[in-house]
C-alpha cells in the first residue's frame, strides 16, 4: 500500500487513542481535585496534569494560571491545542477522508459522526456540559470507531498499520497517565503509602475504567504495588504497557509475514516485550517509577521512529 495511506491509517488510530487519553486525563484531574488538598494545593495538581499531557507550555501561553474551567476547554475544545479532543477527532476524520477508500463506510461513518457531533457540542454553552458526560462521550466514540474497525475491516496490511497506531499510542499514553501520579506526589515523598496515596492510585484505576477488572484480577486490599503491576505488567489488563507492547509486536510480525521481510522495528519490539516480561514490580519501584516510565516512553518513541522509517516514510527499498 502507499506509504502515505499507511501513515494516514496509523495516525487515525493514534488520534483516536489520544483523544480518549485526553478525556481520561481530564477525569483523573477532576477526581484528584475533589480530594482534600494534599498540602501543596489544588493548582499544582492541575499543573501536573498539564505537564503529564505535554500541553503545559501551550496552556500557559494562552491562559496563564491553571483554572479547571480553562483546562477543560483547553484539553477538550481548543483547536489551538493540537492534542485537544476536538483537534484529535478533527484530524482523525480528515485523515480518514483522505484515505476514504482504504476503509469501510461503517468506519467512515463512525469517524464522521464523531466529528459532526463534537462540532455540535462545541457550539453548546459550557455551563450545560458536564465533564463526566464529555469524557463518557469520548470513550463511547472511541469504542464505536474501534468496534467498526474490528467488525468490518479487511485483515490486510492497512489493518496492521491502524492497530500499530493504537498500540504505540496506547503504550505511550498509558505510561504518561501513570506518570501523573508521579507529578502529583513529587514534592512530598511522605505521602507514599498513606491513605491519600492509595486514593490517588484508585483514581488512576477509575480513569482506566478498570476498577472492577482490577478487583477480579487481584482481590483483597488495594495497594500501589498491585495497581502498578496491573497497569504495567499484567497481560490481562488491556491497557497495560506489556499488553500494548505485545499488540505492537504482533502487528509488526503480521506485517513482516505479509511482506516477507523483517527489520529493526520487529527486533526492537521483541526486545522491549522480552524485558517487560522479565520485570517485577519491585524492579520498577527500585528504578523509580518515574525513571522507569521515562525510559519506556523514550523506547516507544524510538520504536515509532523505526516503524516510520521502515514503512511510512516512503523511503523503503
Amino acid at each position, binding site marked *: *500500500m*502507499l*506509504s502515505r495511506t499507511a501513515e494516514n491509517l496509523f495516525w487515525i488510530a493514534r488520534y483516536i487513542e489520544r483523544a480518549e487519553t485526553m478525556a481520561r486525563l481530564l477525569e483523573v484531574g477532576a477526581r484528584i481535585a475533589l480530594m482534600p488538598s494534599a498540602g501543596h494545593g489544588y493548582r499544582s495538581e492541575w499543573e501536573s496534569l498539564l505537564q503529564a499531557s505535554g500541553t503545559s507550555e501551550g496552556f500557559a501561553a494562552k491562559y496563564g494560571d491553571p483554572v479547571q474551567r480553562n483546562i477543560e476547554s483547553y484539553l477538550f475544545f481548543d483547536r489551538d491545542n493540537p492534542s485537544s479532543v476536538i483537534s484529535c477527532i478533527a484530524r482523525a476524520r480528515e485523515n480518514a*477522508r*483522505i484515505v476514504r*477508500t482504504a476503509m469501510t463506510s461503517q468506519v467512515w*461513518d463512525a469517524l464522521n459522526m464523531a466529528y459532526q457531533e463534537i462540532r455540535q457540542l462545541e457550539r453548546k454553552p459550557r455551563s450545560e456540559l458536564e465533564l463526566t458526560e464529555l469524557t463518557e462521550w469520548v470513550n463511547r466514540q472511541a469504542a464505536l470507531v474501534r468496534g467498526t474497525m474490528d467488525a468490518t475491516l479487511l485483515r490486510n496490511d492497512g489493518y496492521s498499520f491502524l492497530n500499530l497506531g493504537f498500540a504505540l499510542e496506547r503504550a505511550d499514553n498509558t505510561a504518561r497517565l501513570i506518570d501523573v501520579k508521579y507529578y502529583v506526589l513529587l514534592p512530598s515523598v511522605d505521602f507514599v503509602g498513606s491513605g491519600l496515596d492509595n486514593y490517588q492510585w484508585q483514581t488512576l484505576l477509575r480513569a482506566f475504567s478498570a476498577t472492577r477488572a482490577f478487583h477480579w484480577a487481584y482481590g483483597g486490599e488495594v495497594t500501589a504495588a498491585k495497581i502498578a503491576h496491573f497497569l504495567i505488567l499484567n497481560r490481562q489488563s488491556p491497557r497495560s504497557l506489556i499488553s500494548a507492547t505485545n499488540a505492537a509486536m504482533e502487528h509488526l510480525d503480521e506485517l513482516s509475514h505479509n511482506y516477507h521481510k523483517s527489520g529493526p522495528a520487529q527486533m526492537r519490539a521483541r526486545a522491549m516485550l522480552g524485558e517487560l516480561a522479565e520485570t517485577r514490580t519491585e524492579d520498577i519501584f527500585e528504578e523509580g517509577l518515574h525513571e522507569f516510565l521515562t525510559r519506556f516512553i523514550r523506547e516507544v518513541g524510538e520504536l515509532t521512529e523505526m516503524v516510520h522509517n521502515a*514503512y511510512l516514510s*516512503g523511503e*523503503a527499498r
Partner: protein
Amino acid sequence: MTNYFNEMYDAGKVREPYARLEGWTKDMPAELRQMKQAEAEALFRRIGITFAVYGEGGDPDRLIPFDMFPRVFTQLEWRRLERGIKQRARALNAFLLDVYGRGEIVRAGKIPAKLVYQNEAFERAVTGFTPPRGIYSHIVGIDLVRTGPDDFYVLEDNCRTPSGVSYMLENREIMMRMFPQIFRENRIEPVDGYADALRRTLASVAPAKCDREPTIAILTPGHFNSAYYEHSFLADLMGVELVEGADLFVEGGFVWMRTTEGPKKLDVIYRRIDDAFLDPLCFRPDSMLGVPGLMDVYRSGGVSICSAPGAGVADDKAVYTFVPEMVRFYLGEEPILQNVPTWQCAKADECKYVLENLGDLVVKEVHGSGGYGMLVGPKSTKEQIETFRAKITEDPDNYIAQPTLALSTTPTFVEEGIAPRHVDLRPYCLVGEKIELVPGGLTRVALTEGSLVVNSSQGGGVKDTWVLAE
C-alpha cells in the same frame, strides 16, 4: 418571451420518454417528496460527496443540490447523440496528434497557425512525441444543450480532465436506492460500467515498455481540492491507487510509487492536475503538486499520462469554432453535432457586432471555465454589460460571444411543486483502444427560475440522466 423546448410536455401532451414518469410524480404526496429529498441529502452527506467552491469560503462541506426528477432520453435520441459525440472525440484527438506532429490542418489553411501555435495551451515540450496509440484526450467531456426535439448544440469541449462523472454514478445509485419501483417500471440503461470502461481505456494506452498488466493510478492535487471526492471515488471503483505528487518519484526512466513494501512501478497516470503543475523541471518550477522529472520519463516512453500534456489546445474556446472543420478534415464526414454560432472578438468586424449586441449575447473568456468571467446579456444589468464592454475593448482576443440559446427545460422539483428549469448535458466519452460512451451523463440544472447558468459554482444542481432501453 422566448419559447423554450420542454422535454416532458409538448403542446400539453407528455412526450414519449417521460410517459411513465407522469403518474409517478402525480402519485407522490408533498410530504413524501420532502422526506425523500431529505433522505437523498443525508445519503450524499454520508457518502461524503461535497463540493467546495473556489473563492467562496463558507461551508467546505457544501453539497451540490440534487434534483430527484430524472432527465430522460429515448434510445433513438441517444444513438444519434452517441454517434455525434464519438465522432467529435475522434476528431479532437486527430487534431491533437496532427498539431503536435506535422500540422497538416494548419498547412492546409483550415485553422490559423497563430491560433494553434501561439495558444497558451500549446505545449512545445511535447511536439515530436507521440503518446501510445496517438491518443491525447482519453476522457472527453462534451457539454451539450438542446433547443428542440432534434436540435443539440455543443457548448464546449473538455479534453483535459473533465470532472463530474462521480455525480453521474452517484446520482444513479441514490435514485435506485430511493425509488426502486420506477426502475422496475422503466427499462433504463445502466451506467455503472463506466469505471470498468475507464480502467480498460487507461490500461489500453500503457507504454510499450510495459510488458505486464499495467499499474494505474490517479494523480490528485490533494484532499484540499474541490474534486477530491471524485478522485478517490474513481480510484476506489477502478481498484487503483490514488496518489499525490509526493507519493511518486522517478528513477531509471520509470515512475515509482512509494509504498510500504518499497518502490512500485507505475505505468499509467490518470492525472487530475493541470499541465503547469505536472513537473517542476519542465513546467512551473514552484509546483509542489507534481513529480520532478515526470515529463522526461513520459517523453522517453516510461509512463503514460492521461490526458496527455498539451491536450488543452483542442478545447480552447477559440479553437472550438474549428471543430466542425476538424471533423471534415480528418474524418471526411459531416459533423453530426452542431456548434453554437460563435463570434470571435479577436476579429475586428465580429467584435464590432458583439459590442453592438451585448444585451442579446453570451460572452465568455477564451480560457475561462466553470461559468466564471461570463456575461449572459439578457440576464444582466446595464452596469454589468458596460463592465464587459470595457473588458472586451481592452483585450478583444480574450473573448468570444454566442447567441443566447433557448436551452430546453425539464420538470424539476422546486419549493412550490414541479416546474420547468433549464438543463444541459455532459456525457463522458472514453478514448483508448476502443471509443466508449456509457448511456448517460451528467445533467446540470439551473435551479433558479429563468436562469440559464447551470454551473454548480453558480447555484446549479444535478439530475440523474436516463437512457431508456428499447
